[in-house]
């Protein structure tokens, strides 16, 4: 019984308030056990979050009286002690992982302080690259999805900063293409993972975020390419995007992941609309584009509903 059942049955019956209340409390609402779990996670996350941001602020204050060795020693001490807790304590795995995530952020603070002392700048790409490298091992060992997410954000950021600071001759489309390829390959490997190693379960929200990132990068890259088609990597991006989209749709249908079947066509709709506006930006074209969006999105939703119905019947 889920919430929808209760809503529907209550609509067509004389179910009393106390009865509905009991059903909601029994079947839907969080019980004592889940509250305990939730509070535990809430407090530990708030605790680690506040402590780490306190530490970040402390070093951002750039206390001149504190010798540079003391500053770095302090952070290193914190990193060592928090990783020791993870290594040697008997806390449950989730809490250890949250502590390790906090320690990974502290590594960033260490690099930032290093940059502060030796004037390397706070957004230098090598700072992010060093940070990424240093936590790689922890990320792999802990295999904790939120930490993986932090890690991937770092990898993407390092690359974007590298493109801006060092390889400034790279075209925008090339940068977006690389970001798209990286995230797509990653997503592909995550989906292939369970075939190699059975017990590996990746949470849906994680793959959804990576999928959204990949599709967003390709969409932006192609939209830029449409308006500025001199850039050579455009055709490569277009080709790769077509292959990736086709694979995504195929996989979405096969593995019954409706999410891919919604974001990929939506990206295509945006790209086609841009193309139409590129062809002509007269009044009639805007009219056509608005009609096109309504019709295509409506058809897309109809398709999604049909396929969902089919899946439900197969189940």
């Amino acid at each position, binding site marked *: 019984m889920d919430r929808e059942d209760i809503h529907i049955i209550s609509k067509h019956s004389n*179910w009393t308030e106390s009865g509905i209340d009991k059903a909601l409390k029994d079947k839907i609402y969080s019980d004592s056990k889940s509250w305990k779990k939730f509070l535990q996670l809430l407090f*530990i996350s708030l605790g680690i979050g506040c402590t780490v941001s306190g530490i970040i602020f402390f070093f951002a204050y750039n206390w001149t009286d504190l010798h540079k060795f003391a500053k770095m020693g302090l952070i290193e001490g914190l990193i060592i002690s928090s990783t020791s807790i993870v290594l040697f304590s008997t806390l449950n795995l989730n809490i250890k992982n949250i502590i390790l995530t906090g320690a990974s952020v502290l590594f960033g603070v260490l690099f930032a302080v290093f940059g502060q002392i030796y004037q390397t700048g706070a957004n230098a790409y090598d700072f992010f690259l060093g940070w990424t490298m240093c936590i790689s091992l922890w990320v792999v060992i802990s295999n904790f999805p939120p930490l993986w997410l932090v890690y991937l954000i770092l990898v993407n950021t390092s690359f974007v900063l590298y493109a801006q600071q060092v390889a400034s001759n790279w075209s925008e489309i090339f940068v977006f293409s690389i970001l798209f390829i990286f995230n797509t390959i990653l997503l592909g490997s995550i989906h292939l993972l369970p075939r190699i190693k059975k017990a590996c379960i990746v949470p849906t929200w994680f793959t959804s975020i990576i999928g959204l990132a990949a599709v967003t990068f390709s969409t932006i890259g192609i939209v830029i390419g449409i308006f500025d088609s001199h850039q050579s990597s455009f055709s490569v991006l277009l080709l790769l995007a077509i292959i990736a989209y086709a694979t995504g749709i195929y996989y979405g249908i096969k593995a019954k992941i409706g999410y891919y079947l919604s974001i990929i066509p939506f990206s295509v709709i945006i790209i086609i609309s841009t193309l139409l506006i590129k062809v002509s930006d007269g009044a009639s074209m*805007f009219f056509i*584009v*608005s009609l096109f969006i309504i019709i295509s999105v409506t058809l897309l939703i109809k398709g999604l509903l049909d396929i969902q119905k089919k899946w439900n019947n197969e189940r």
Partner: protein
Amino acid sequence: MIFKKSGTMKDKISITENIEYITKIEGDGFEFNEIELENEYSKVQNDESSIAIKILSILGGFFAAITFLGFLLIAGLYDSEEGLVVTGLIFVCAALLLNVVYKKLIIDTLSVSAYGLGLCLIAFGLSALQVGGNTISIIFVLISLLTIGITKNYILSFISILTINGSFIFLIIENELYSLIHIYNAILLVLVTYVFLKEAKLLADNRFPSQLYNPVRIGLLISLLLGLVFVGQRGIFNFDIKYIWSSSLITIPLTIYVISIITKIIGITKVKTLYLIYSLCILFLIPTALSPAISGSLLIILLCFLVNYKTGLAIGVFSFIYFISQYYYDLNYTLLTKSIILFVSGIVFLLFSVVTHQKLGYNEKI
């Protein structure tokens, strides 16, 4: 999870099981309309909407409305003010009519864009006709109320709830009565808490259409967040709102009330422990009184977890993190003092987690 994995296909067996379960609680007095129930279930199966589909409808409708506005702008169809208002009204009516006649999920994109476009055109036309912002807002509230009453469609009702509350915020800004935002917040806080805690009462009440419950809940939640943004310390908008703390007079008691419900669920009965919990909560909440948005978003988190509403929980967590960061960013202390405050509160939370770990005897692996 974007598509619900389980429970989507309501086969006969599970419906019968549900009915049996209810009859067990309710006794022999329980009656239901079998034919209508079956109709509704078969309709739900054909139109099972996921969050992805709802977002697609809204985004699609939004983009279509914008390009259509672009068309009107370039084609210069802005010349006649009366024409704009009339076209707007036609669009709104068409959206409503479509919904009443078809009652199908797939026309959502069309009706959302027609509805949004209609509202925009009415607003443009009326303001070109020198009608004041106040009148336009009131007209919008009336149109939205009418929309909810007529269609009861999920997305249109959701948009209407946002439009109503948006109009109230607009009225407050337009008339420079910024302190009234506290009244707005107070009303929404009470409403949100009521809707969350009295789900059973609302569902049992035949005067309240149960299909409106979900859109009303999410609509009110987002409207409340809009109001809270104004009282998030100095916030994004520098409207010089007086007595920012006064919204806390509502948020803090409500939060404590919800905590009292939670202690009952967990089963804490020792008076001493209860006193300890309440005093710790008050100790945490009092310093946040200067930024009612913090306790407001905490209330949202607790309410959403209480009724197991995941979308709301995610919204609550993000807004909580945002409001806390905003609060510290705005504080008029040096970074050193801020860092000490944060560090100490972090340690206090860690202690909390140790205490709850021991007191609640929670030892399972998650």
